[in-house]
């Protein structure tokens, strides 16, 4: 019974995947993501055997790593999870393709962003619990990337859209059934506003 349901899902997932192959963009066409400054920290106290690191970090630039650095480090930008809450995009099992029925949500987010120039958006990709940890972390990132690509195609600057994957961590619904899984396979948009704009 469980297996049958699962097989159905598998077939559905396969059909959707195959259907999506035609319109999936090749990586060459994709938009690069600017990076961030490296950071070093040393434990304040090393009284424990393994030197627990609870120190606050210091920015460091001497690591010899060439990063394409972002002009904006969004870490200091206040986030607003309410504005786009209604536009959370849901995905099919094991798929990072934005379904036709979900595209209007992308358009709504893009419209808002165009009217609020200077704001940024973070796209968070999530998965259901089926699948292994790191596989899902990569899948969640591809969901976020697919939505980011959608926003860029709708005219949003690629420097103002960042992505994060949470994999199967932080599910919306704790259940172990399709009702919960379908809600957990999602991409959320979080509005980020420049720190100066928040001050009254």
């Amino acid at each position, binding site marked *: 019974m469980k297996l049958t349901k*699962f097989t159905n899902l*598998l077939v559905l997932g396969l059909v959707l995947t195959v259907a999506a*192959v035609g319109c*999936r963009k*090749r*990586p*060459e066409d*994709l938009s*690069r*993501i*600017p*990076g*961030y*400054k*490296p*950071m*070093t*920290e*040393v*434990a304040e106290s*090393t009284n*424990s*055997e*393994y*030197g*627990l*690191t*609870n120190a606050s*970090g210091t920015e460091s630039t001497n*690591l*010899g*790593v*060439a*990063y*394409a650095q*972002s002009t904006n480090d*969004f*870490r200091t930008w206040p986030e607003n999870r309410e504005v786009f809450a209604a536009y959370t995009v849901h995905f099919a099992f094991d798929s990072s393709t934005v379904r036709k029925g979900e595209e209007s949500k992308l358009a709504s987010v893009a419209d808002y962003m165009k009217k609020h120039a200077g704001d940024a958006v973070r796209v968070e990709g999530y998965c259901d619990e*089926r*699948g*292994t*940890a*790191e*596989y899902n*972390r*990569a*899948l*969640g*990132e*591809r969901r*976020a*990337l697919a939505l980011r*690509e959608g926003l860029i195609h709708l005219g949003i600057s690629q420097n103002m859209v*960042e*992505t*994060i*994957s*949470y994999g199967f*961590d*932080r599910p919306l619904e704790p259940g172990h059934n399709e009702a919960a899984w379908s809600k957990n396979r999602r991409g959320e948009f979080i509005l980020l506003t420049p720190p100066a704009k928040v001050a009254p």
Partner: protein
Amino acid sequence: MKKFTLFKHAIFVIGLLAFGASAYSQIEITNIQPVGPGLAKPIYLSMTGLTGEAAQVLQFDLYVQGFAFTNAEGAQFLISGSNNGNLQARVTDKYNKGTLVAKAYSGGSIRRQVHAFADDFVQAIGRKGIAQTKIAFRGDAGAESEIYIADFDGANAQAVTRDHSLVVAPCWVPGHLALFYTSYKLNHPDIFYHNLSTGERKTFARYGGSNLSPAVSPDGSKVAMILSKDGWTDLYVCNIDGSGLLRLTKSPQDESSPCWSPDSKWICYAAKDHERRTLSKIPATGGTARVIRTGGTGSPTEPDWSPDGKWIAFTTLYRDFQICVVPADGGEATVLVEGEDPSWAPNSRTLICTRRTAGRTVLSLLDVPTKQVKDISRFSGSSSQSQPSWAR
């Protein structure tokens, strides 16, 4: 004709006995049979004189390395000793009356002494001991996770991060008390290098997008990882100091969970080949990926290459998760037990993996040849444990 064959057999048996009596390590040949993973019989032991924690620790240590305990009649090796204060222990071989180990231990806890004895015994029969090795893993408490390290049996678990965020996917630097892992501390999944001796840590990969699944090469010179900075999740490799970043894959499909061949020349990872999930390997210097056949199983992920180079352990996806092994060159895979995310011990026979149970995950040890499996029950500080990495 028939007589002659019988005669030949008699000579062979006498020869084997004579040879066996001269070297303990050779006796073991009778137990190493060319059987597939999961089909070997355990080596039987008996134990007298050890009590309480000492007896429990020894039974655990040896069970997960392919031994089983029985009475003196059924045992090949007889363990005797005492643990009043310090441990004294002796192992004799029942068949030739030889003594393999006779030793008194002092210093440290009784647990440490028993681990040392377990290693002495295992090494005396020609194997690599693992009872004094360490593991790293992800421990969850509420919505947060931190990286922990512990003895291989779960004792002395200690958090090494306090990021109050998600910290995941630890990986040891071979031969060093140092880890790579992904932490969301800076609002973003970045790969950190963490020297556990000095407490120093630094961001290793803080590229745009997600920085995932670090894996250090066995020679310690390179790190493989999954990055999305170029707009898709692909496999990358760079030098241990972060320089020389090289993108190894550029496909419209997906890659995850890199691991290394023991000679540090190949990176094996979960991939897709014509919409079919596979394990693949690619030269660490770049080149063409090759599919590693995992016959008899579907959707392989989370490969880990055994230190002796012979096997790749992995997880099958889409059913209940199962731990499988396949010859490193590919072939028919063997499904072993329920579990996911396997990591090999230095002995190339014991695996540590994650098992989902009643809304949480636990770590489990598996002896591949005998399929003997045991959950690690004792942990403090976290309610759920996963993503183990065995120090080697």
